[in-house]
């Protein structure tokens, strides 16, 4: 039986293995960190007073908002589009599978920066977009913001497709066979049986991707979208304080990615804890129920 503790007299004092080198390591790490911090703080060339001045400047805060928007939109639509691609890749139809594989091949195989500039310059390739006599001027349609969203989303979808496909692959083949043998339709097998199990693998990776996207969104500064990095660029373009403004941007990126990491950690451990708590509770109920056996 679990939960029955033996008498204290039977328990020895037991300590974990311990190495004195641990102290040496701590001393070395703390000293070098302190020296580095001191040199950074006391070096006047960092212009910490300018960092402080712009840290909460309205233009920077608007840039943060734009960065968060871009990240959220591209992750959400990237996941949705990626899920469609993943289902296509697993489809028995060779046409759908090849289309999706080709898409992933192209968008993972070319640099995101190049893709962004490409979308931005779409109007140069196709000055008008439309069909059946209904034409739109591409220059007006493809704003920098739209080019940024399309570029980030289409790129993210390629990665998400691989992640989601990997999630499906991680589910035991026997699950598909058991579900099929019951007569469940292919769509039900995918969404009711495989997807819930694949989510365990997919969710943590989506967390990683979100953090990567947060930083990758800085690439759209080249399109002139006023997200965080571009906002910093605008400021140092006028006052030439490049380093302090880049520090301002970095502080905010670090803060945002830290928050996202914490969120990811909470989601993951809640997943694990709920599962183990549920099973231990169920186990206790069962132990009571079948106690007589």
């Amino acid at each position, binding site marked *: 039986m679990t939960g029955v503790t033996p008498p204290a007299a039977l328990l020895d004092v037991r300590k974990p293995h311990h190495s004195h080198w641990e102290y040496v390591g701590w001393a070395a790490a703390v000293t070098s960190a302190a020296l580095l911090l001191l040199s950074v703080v006391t070096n006047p060339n960092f212009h910490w007073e300018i960092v402080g001045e712009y840290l909460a400047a309205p233009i920077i805060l608007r840039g943060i908002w734009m960065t968060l928007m871009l990240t959220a939109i591209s992750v959400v639509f990237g996941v949705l589009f990626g899920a469609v691609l993943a289902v296509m890749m697993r489809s028995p139809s060779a046409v759908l599978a090849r289309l999706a594989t080709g898409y992933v091949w192209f968008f993972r195989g070319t640099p995101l920066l190049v893709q962004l500039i490409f979308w931005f310059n779409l109007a140069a390739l196709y000055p008008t977009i439309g069909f059946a006599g209904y034409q739109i001027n591409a220059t007006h349609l493809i704003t920098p913001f739209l080019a940024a969203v399309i570029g980030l989303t289409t790129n993210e979808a390629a990665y998400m497709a691989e992640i989601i496909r990997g999630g499906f692959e991680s589910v035991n083949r026997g699950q598909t066979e058991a579900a099929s043998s019951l*007569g469940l339709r292919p769509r039900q097998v995918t969404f009711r049986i495989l997807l*819930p199990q694949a989510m365990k693998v997919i969710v943590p990776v989506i967390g990683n991707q979100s953090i990567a996207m947060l930083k990758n969104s800085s690439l759209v500064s080249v399109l002139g979208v006023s997200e965080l990095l571009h906002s910093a660029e605008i400021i140092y373009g006028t006052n030439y304080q490049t380093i302090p403004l880049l520090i301002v941007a970095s502080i905010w990126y670090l803060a945002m990615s830290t928050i996202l990491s914490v969120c990811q950690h909470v989601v993951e451990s809640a997943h694990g804890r709920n599962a183990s708590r549920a099973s231990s509770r169920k186990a206790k109920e069962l132990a009571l129920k079948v106690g007589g056996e």
Partner: protein
Amino acid sequence: MSDLAVSVRGLVKQFGSHTVLRNIDFDVQAGHVSCIIGPSGSGKSTLLRCLNSLEEIQGGEVRVFGELQGYVAVNHGYRRLSPVRLAQQREHVGMVFQSFNLFPHMTVEQNLTCAPTLLGKEKAATSRKRAAELLAMVGMAGYGSSYPEQLSGGQQQRVAIARALMMNPRVLLFDEPTSALDAERVSEVLDVMKTLAKVGKTMVVVTHELSFAREVADVVTFMDEGVVVEAGRPEQVLGHPECDRTKAFLSKVL
């Protein structure tokens, strides 16, 4: 013809260039228990998987109560059915796997009710009521809200049998149902299968449990290297085998 629950004619199954089943003929009468025995690699599990179209076949026909399985006859051969048509056929052929394959994200009750309710066969309440009855029948009453991971192998397999029964299959296939179990758990699963045999369920059982075959089977089929070597009453095939290969196999496992 149509009182044959399962009828296999000239079945050929290849994996690439490797032929696993060579021209198999195999029948099961409605209400009979048919056990397939043989050494590993003899093709017995593959034959079972062909019966509900989990495998594509390269030659011959599989019929369940007269209906061609997995394919439709066309001018010069056969065409594979669509995935949805395959699923419709599989509703009538239940399967129990060696590794149970319960859905780990669902409770025992949800494992039982998901197929009938998702396929719109019955209302959720009716389905839950039948699930409770079937769980009681396999000796798992009261475990409806448990998750598969909390159950022993024997318990999981009994739930898997109940899950297959929920669809009221006309034929029930068992693929080495006790091979993954601890020795002391084997009998609880075999007992459930004996109960099913008594009520006249048509069953095809791939098994290594020769005592079960001797006691329960109406027909025992011995397979080796992709062919049916010998088939007949259990006392005949297991007691007085005619073929040398059968004798050699039995002398090894008995």
